[in-house]
């Protein structure tokens, strides 16, 4: 073989070899890149779905909670009244509102379409040779979303009880107030009615008014 032939052969081998190995590299890189895109998209889609469901289940639960608290409060007030007169009706409303709120929340939880829990995400990313930093970043994002879902589920479940206690307290406060004060002094900013030492119902500041007995 002549020198020119040998060199031409070597040149052809090199060009073809580098071209082929470059194509393999590009293929591998693109494969991993698209897998990574898919993985990230699954995480983001899971996050978006969880956020949407969390809002809708809270909205739904708040309706049931309100209805339950009102019904429970009125029911308790009615039930407590005959047995313990005024005090019984107040405690009855308090306990009824709390129990009704809890029951309403639990009904909302139990009847939530598709289950009350936010579905966890579990996308899988195949191993690879490249994009170490992006892989780590995607895994961190996955952990963040999983943690958010887990916390949101815990909070939702706990909130039935905390809301029930809160509703009971609210009912109790309302029952201790004069019904006319449930909504404050509408239209009179800064004014406050108090009972003075003479037993007169007056505006804070001195104006004598009429006290309802």
């Amino acid at each position, binding site marked *: 073989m002549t*020198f020119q032939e040998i060199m031409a052969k070597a040149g052809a081998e090199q060009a073809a070899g580098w071209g082929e190995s470059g194509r393999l590299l590009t293929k591998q890189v693109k494969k991993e890149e698209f*897998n990574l895109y898919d993985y990230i998209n699954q995480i983001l889609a899971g996050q978006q779905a969880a956020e949407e469901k969390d809002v809708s289940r809270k909205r739904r639960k708040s309706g049931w909670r309100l209805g339950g608290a009102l019904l429970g409060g009125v029911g308790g007030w009615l039930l407590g009244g005959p047995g313990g007169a005024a005090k019984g009706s107040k405690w009855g409303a308090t306990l009824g509102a709390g129990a009704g709120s809890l029951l309403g929340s639990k009904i909302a939880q139990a009847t939530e379409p598709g289950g009350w829990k936010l579905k966890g995400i579990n996308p899988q990313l195949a191993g690879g040779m490249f994009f170490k930093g992006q892989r780590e970043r995607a895994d961190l994002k996955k952990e963040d979303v999983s943690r958010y879902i887990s916390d949101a589920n815990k909070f939702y479940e706990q909130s039935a009880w905390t809301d029930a206690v809160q509703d009971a307290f609210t009912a109790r406060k309302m029952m201790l107030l004069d019904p006319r004060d449930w909504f404050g002094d509408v239209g009179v900013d800064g004014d406050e009615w108090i009972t003075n030492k003479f037993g007169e119902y007056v505006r804070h500041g001195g104006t004598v008014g009429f006290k309802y007995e």
Partner: protein
Amino acid sequence: MNEQLQKLLEAAGLGDFSQYFTGDLSQIIKLLGLKGDQSTQFGKFFQQFNPQTYLDAADAASESRDVRSGMLSGRLGEQLSSLKRGTETGLERGRDKFRELGATSGFGDKFGALKREGGESIEDIIQKSLTQKSGYQRDFQRGSIASEEQYGSERGAIYSDLQKWLNAVLARGERLYGLDLTGGGGGNGGSGDPGGGGDTTPLGF
């Protein structure tokens, strides 16, 4: 490493990079700083170096030069032999001619004018012969220079190819670095089969 290849690399100015030219891909991977499984995983992204090809090319260039040199020397030898024969023949004929003229005239070849004329003719023959000889020698030198130039350009082509190969290795290494290597523990994950395009698109999220 092959001693002949080492010399070739040194002549090409690549003596310090001779470790890249062993023909062992795992060696290159190590030299590029890729570790562990990467040496086997990444081997497929490099083109193997075949030392024998370049040794064959260097041998072919040397042989070709030797052949040309031999041909030039042979031709010069033939030309000089031919010239020598021609000159001797010419001189012999000249001498014979003057002897004949001297004998015919009765003065022999000792006569002054005849002797002078005969001497000048011989000088002409010798001068002509020397001119031809120097012409042949110039031709030989020109041929030798052309042969050396060709040899040099052939060696240059080999050096250039070696350099190109090393550049390709280093460039591929740089490209791999830019892809943020994971450690090579993985494999051919997923099912995508994309075509060409850029490598390091940032994945924004």
